[in-house]
C-alpha cells in the first residue's frame, strides 16, 4: 500500500521522539529504548499524538536499538524492538488507523565508525542491522535508516534490509552547513549510491533546520529520481536558562519551507525539537499531490565522497594497478605486500586520474579474497572512484560488496555467459558496467563493434540496467598487427557517442610492438577524444598523455578560459628535443637531459632529498661498486643522521626524511646486486589489539627499513592470535609491539603472554606513548625503546 501512494500523495511522518521523552522526564544518560518495555503507555501516547496530528507513519522508538549500543541496557535489544513495534501497532489500533497508517522500523547509526576509518567491520555492521530487522520484519510496513553520517554504514544497513526483508527501505542522512555528511559525502554522491542500491525513498534529517537544509533538499529534488523525504530539526539549538531549546515555532518552521514545499517533496516529518503541532501545520500546508519531477539520467560512478560523471568531459582512468607485465607488482600481490599498490594509487590520483582501475588477477591467487582486502585499503587513501577489473564474477561481487560508493565494473563482453554472471551483481550493488565490444569473434569493422554494443544494451535491459548504467569499450587493437582497424575503433566511438552512450578505451594497446610508443599513444588518444571518447584508460603519470588531454580540452572549448591548461602548463619549460636514433633503432634519447649535479648520495640522505636521490644514486653506481656505496656512503650517512638526532641537532621529521631517502637509495642499489643482498631481520611490527593509533609504529618501520631491516608490518588493531600466527609463519628475529593508550597496554600484555605460551624465544620490544621501562617489565616484555632511533640502536646491539 505504501508503494501505491509513495511519490504520488504527500505522506507525513511523525516528529521528534527524544524531545517528547525528555518532556516526559527522560533523564540524561537514560536509555530511551528501555521505555518500550518500562513505560509502554507513554510511548503509545506519543505515537497517538502524532497520528492525531496527521502523521501517516509511526516511527518506532528504536533509533539506537542495535546490540552494540544496547550493551548497557537492561533488556535484550530485540525484546525492546518487538515491544516498540507492538506499541506502535497499539497506538494505531487505538485510533482505528490500522489500514491507513504505517509502522516504520527506525534504525539509527550503530555509534561506531566502520573500518578502515574505524574498527567495526562491514560484515559486523551488517549483522547488527540484520538482527534489528529480522526480529520484526513481518510486523512492520517499512524500514527507515535515519540520521546516518557514514555512507558505508548506510550501505551495510541497506544490504541487511534488502537481503532479509521485503518491505520498502527509506534512507535519510544528516548534512552540515557545508552540505557534507560527517564522513564527507555530498548529496550527489549520496543520491548516486542509494539509487544504485535501489532504496524506495531518499531523504535528509536532523542537524539543521529547514532553512539551512534548503540547499540539500533542492539537490535531492533536482538530482534524484527517488521520492524525497525530509525531516528537519525545529531550527538550530540555542541555550536558554541552561537548557537546549530549538528556535522555530511550527509557524516559522513551515514558513522556512515555503521555497521547497511545492517542488515535489514526497514525505515530510520532523526531527529534534519538533512536536505534533509541527506535523499538524505541515499537513495543513503541504499540497495533497506530489509534483512530478523530470530529472535526467546520467552515467556516474562514486567513491564515498566524490562522484565522477562519465558523460561529460574526458575523465582519466588510471591503469597502473594491474599486475599484467609487472613483475614487482605480481610479487607484491603474492606476498600480500600491498604498500606498492597503495603508493601507485596515490601517485595516480595526484597525477590527475579521476577513476582508478583495480586488477589483482594472477594465476594461483584468490582474487575475491584479495579484492576484499585491497578495496578498503585503497579507499582509505584515495578519494576517487574505483574500477573493479576482473574476469571472475565472484571477485567482482566480493569487491562490489565491500566497495564504499557506486563502482565501475570492468567488464562484460558480448558473450551471454559473461553478462549473465556480471549483470546481477551490477543490479544488486548498483554498479556501472563497462561493455567490451568483443564476442566469440574479434570484431573488425565498426558495424560489428556497434552490433555487440547493441547486444550488450539489450541484455542489460533484461536485468533492468539502462544505457546510462553502461560504458562501451570500443576495443583497441594493436595497430602494428591490424592497422586498418584503428580507424574502425574511432568510427565506432563516434557511433556509440551518437547513441547517447559513454565510452572507454585502453589506449596504449594501440602501439604494442612499435618503436616510440608514446607518439602513437598520444596521437591515437587525441583522435579518440575527438571521436567522443570519455574515459581513456591510461597511465596518468605519463605527462605527455595528460598534456594531450589538457590541450584537447582547450581546443574543444571544455576548459573554458584555458584555466586548467594554464594551471598545468604554465611552468613547463619548452625545450627543443633532439631525437636521435640509437644503433639498434629502438627508442629515442633526450639529448637535453641534464647531469645529476654535484650533490652526492651522502648529502642527499643527510638533507632528505628524496626526490633527487634516485638519479644521483644511479649516477654514482656507474663509478662505484654497489657494496662500497652502501658501506662507505649510505650507512655512514645514516649513522651520522642518527647521531645528530640523538644529540638534538636534528629532529624527528628530519630523521624520518633522511630514513625515507636512504630507503630509496637502498632500493636503487639493490638492483645492482647480482645475488640478492642480505637483508637484516625480519622484524615483526604491529600496533596491538584494540589500538588504532599507528603513526608511531609507522615511524619505526620507516627508520628500520632505512637501516636495511626487513619489516613485516601486521598493521594496527592486530588480534593476539594474528601476532602469534605471524611469529610462527615468518620466524622473525624480533617482535615490536606498539600501544598508545593505557587501556591497550593490557592487550600488549596478553599478546606477550600468548607469544611466550607459544615458545617465542626472540626478543619482544615494546614502545608507545604510555610505555615506560617499569611497565615493560611488568608486562613481561624484553625491552622498552623510547623512539625509532633507539630501537634501531637496540637491534644493532642485539646483532639482529
Amino acid at each position, binding site marked *: 500500500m505504501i508503494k501505491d501512494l509513495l511519490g504520488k500523495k504527500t505522506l507525513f511522518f511523525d516528529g521528534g521522539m527524544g524531545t517528547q521523552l525528555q518532556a516526559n522526564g527522560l533523564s540524561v544518560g537514560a536509555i530511551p529504548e528501555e521505555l518500550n518495555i518500562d513505560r509502554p503507555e507513554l510511548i503509545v501516547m506519543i505515537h497517538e499524538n502524532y497520528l492525531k496530528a496527521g502523521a501517516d507513519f509511526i516511527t518506532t522508538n528504536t533509533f539506537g536499538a542495535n546490540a552494540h549500543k544496547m550493551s548497557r541496557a537492561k533488556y535484550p535489544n530485540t525484546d525492546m524492538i518487538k515491544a516498540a513495534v507492538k506499541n506502535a501497532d497499539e497506538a494505531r489500533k487505538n485510533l482505528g488507523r490500522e489500514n491507513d497508517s504505517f509502522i516504520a522500523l527506525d534504525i539509527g547509526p550503530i555509534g561506531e565508525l566502520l573500518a578502515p*576509518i*574505524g574498527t567495526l567491520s562491514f560484515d559486523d555492521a551488517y549483522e547488527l542491522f540484520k538482527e534489528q530487522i529480522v526480529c520484526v520484519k513481518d510486523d512492520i510496513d517499512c524500514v527507515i535508516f535515519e540520521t546516518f553520517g557514514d555512507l558505508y554504514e548506510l550501505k551495510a544497513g541497506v544490504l541487511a534490509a534488502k537481503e532479509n526483508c521485503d518491505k520498502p527501505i527509506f534512507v535519510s542522512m544528516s548534512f*552540515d552547513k*557545508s552540505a557534507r555528511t560527517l564522513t564527507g559525502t555530498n548529496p550527489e554522491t549520496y543520491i548516486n549510491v542509494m539509487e544504485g542500491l535501489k532504496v524506495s525513498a531518499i531523504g535528509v534529517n*536532523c542537524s539543521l533546520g529547514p532553512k539551512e537544509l534548503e540547499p540539500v533538499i533542492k539537490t535531492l529534488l533536482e538530482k534524484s529520481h527517488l521520492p524525497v523525504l525530509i525531516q528537519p530539526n525545529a531550527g538550530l539549538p540555542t541555550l536558554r536558562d541552561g537548557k537546549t531549546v530549538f528556535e522555530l515555532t511550527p509557524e516559522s518552521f513551515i514558513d522556512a519551507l515555503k521555497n521547497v514545499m511545492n517542488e515535489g517533496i514526497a514525505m515530510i516529518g520532523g526531527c529534534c525539537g519538533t512536536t505534533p503541532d509541527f506535523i499538524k501545520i505541515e499537513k495543513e500546508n503541504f499540497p495533497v499531490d506530489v509534483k512530478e519531477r523530470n530529472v535526467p539520467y546520467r552515467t556516474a560512478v562514486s567513491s564515498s565522497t566524490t562522484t565522477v560523471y562519465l558523460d561529460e568531459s574526458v575523465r582519466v582512468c588510471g591503469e597502473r594497478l594491474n599486475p599484467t607485465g609487472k613483475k614487482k607488482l605480481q610479487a607484491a600481490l603474492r606476498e600480500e605486500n600491498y604498500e606498492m599498490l597503495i603508493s601507485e594509487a*596515490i601517485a595516480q590520483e595526484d597525477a590527475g586520474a579521476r577513476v582508478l582501475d583495480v586488477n589483482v588477477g594472477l594465476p594461483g591467487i584468490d582474487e575475491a579474497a584479495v579484492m576484499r582486502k585491497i578495496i578498503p585499503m585503497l579507499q582509505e587513501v584515495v578519494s576517487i572512484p574505483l574500477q573493479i577489473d576482473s574476469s571472475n564474477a565472484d571477485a567482482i561481487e566480493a569487491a562490489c560488496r565491500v566497495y564504499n560508493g557506486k563502482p565501475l565494473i570492468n567488464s562484460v563482453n558480448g558473450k551471454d555467459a559473461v553478462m549473465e554472471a556480471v549483470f546481477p551483481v551490477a543490479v544488486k550493488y548498483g554498479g556501472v558496467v563497462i561493455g567490451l565490444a568483443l564476442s566469440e569473434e574479434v570484431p573488425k569493422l565498426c558495424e560489428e563493434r556497434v552490433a555487440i554494443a547493441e547486444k550488450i544494451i539489450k541484455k542489460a535491459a533484461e536485468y533492468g540496467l539502462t544505457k546510462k548504467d553502461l560504458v562501451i569499450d570500443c576495443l583497441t587493437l594493436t595497430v602494428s598487427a591490424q592497422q586498418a582497424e584503428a580507424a574502425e575503433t574511432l568510427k565506432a566511438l563516434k557511433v556509440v557517442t551518437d547513441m547517447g552512450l559513454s565510452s572507454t578505451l585502453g589506449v596504449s594497446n594501440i602501439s604494442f610492438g612499435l618503436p616510440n610508443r608514446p607518439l602513437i599513444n598520444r596521437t591515437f588518444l587525441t583522435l579518440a577524444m575527438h571521436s567522443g571518447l570519455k574515459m581513456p584508460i591510461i597511465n596518468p603519470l605519463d605527462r605527455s598523455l595528460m598534456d594531450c588531454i589538457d590541450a584537447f580540452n582547450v581546443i574543444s572549448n571544455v576548459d573554458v578560459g584555458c584555466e586548467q591548461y594554464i594551471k598545468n602548463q604554465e611552468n613547463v619549460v619548452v625545450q627543443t628535443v633532439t631525437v636521435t636514433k640509437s644503433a639498434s633503432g629502438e627508442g629515442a634519447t633526450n639529448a637535453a637531459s641534464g647531469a645529476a649535479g654535484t650533490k652526492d648520495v651522502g648529502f642527499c640522505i643527510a638533507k632528505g632529498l628524496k626526490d633527487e636521490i634516485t638519479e644521483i644514486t644511479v649516477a654514482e653506481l656507474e663509478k662505484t661498486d654497489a657494496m662500497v656505496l652502501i658501506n662507505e656512503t649510505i650507512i655512514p650517512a645514516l649513522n651520522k643522521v642518527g647521531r645528530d638526532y640523538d644529540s638534538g641537532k636534528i629532529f624527528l621529521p*628530519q630523521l624520518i626524511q633522511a630514513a625515507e631517502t636512504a630507503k630509496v637509495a637502498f632500493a636503487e642499489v639493490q638492483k645492482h646486486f647480482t645475488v640478492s643482498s642480505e637483508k637484516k631481520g625480519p622484524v615483526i611490527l604491529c600496533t596491538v589489539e584494540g589500538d*588504532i593509533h*599507528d603513526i608511531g609504529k609507522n615511524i619505526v618501520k620507516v627508520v628500520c627499513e632505512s637501516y636495511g631491516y626487513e619489516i613485516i608490518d601486521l598493521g594496527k588493531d592486530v588480534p593476539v592470535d594474528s601476532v602469534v600466527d605471524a611469529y610462527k609463519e615468518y620466524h622473525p628475529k624480533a617482535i615490536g609491539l606498539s600501544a598508545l593508550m593505557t587501556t591497550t597496554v593490557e592487550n600488549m600484555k596478553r599478546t606477550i603472554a600468548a607469544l611466550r605460551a607459544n615458545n617465542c624465544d626472540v626478543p619482544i620490544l615494546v614502545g608507545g606513548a604510555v610505555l615506560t621501562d617499569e611497565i615493560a617489565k611488568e608486562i613481561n616484555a624484553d625491552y622498552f625503546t623510547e623512539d625509532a632511533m633507539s630501537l634501531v640502536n637496540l637491534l644493532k646491539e642485539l646483532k639482529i
Partner: protein
Amino acid sequence: MNDKEIFNRIFPTACRYMRVDPIKVDVEFNDKAFEAFGMLMDNVRFKGQHEFMSVKNLMGIDTELTSQSSDLSFYLEGCKDVVIFATTLGVNVDAFSKKLQANDMSRAVIYDSLASALLEFMTDEYEESLNLGAHTFRFAPGYGDIPIQLNYIIIDALSISKKIGIYKASNNMMLPQKSMITFCGMGKEVAPTCAHCIRLKNCSLRKDNLRCYNS
C-alpha cells in the same frame, strides 16, 4: 585570525609533540611545517558541542564509573554545574594523514602534530567564545583516575555521534582521532596541575622544566 596567525600560535606546541625545539627550527623546517599546515586546514572541519549539566547529573550519568574516581570529585568540589565539551577536527584529517603516511612519513609526522595542537587551540577558542566566567581548567576522562570509559557514556548520553560525529572505537578510544571530550567545573578558578597526571614521574617535559599545558 588568519591561517598564518593560527600557525604561529600552534607551532610551538606542535614542535613539542615532535620533540623539536621551536627555538632551533630553521626556515626550511618552518616552511615545510607551514605547507603541512595548509594541507591540514584544507581538511579540517571543526565541530564543537557543549552541554551544561549539574555536577549531580554528571555524577549520576554512570555512578559505577564516577564513584571510582576521587579526582573527579576533587576537581569539581565546590562546583554546582559543569560544562562538557566535545570537539573534533573531523574524519578528513585522519584520512589525509593516512595518505601522507603512505607516501611521506616525515610530512605525516608534522601534519599529525599540527593537528593535535590545532584541536587544542580550536577547543580553547570554542571555550573562550562561551564566556564561562569562573571555571576550573579543562580536564578529560583518562586524566588522573577519571575512568576513560566515561567517554563512551557521554557520547551516548549527549548524542555526540549524531550531533558532531565523534564515534566510539574499541577500548574507549574515539574517532576521528583528533577529537576530545572534556569538562570544566563552573564557579571557581582551578589552574591545571601535573599532580594527578599519569606521567608525573616520567614526564620528559617536566625533566626540562616544561609543562604540557603551558606551551
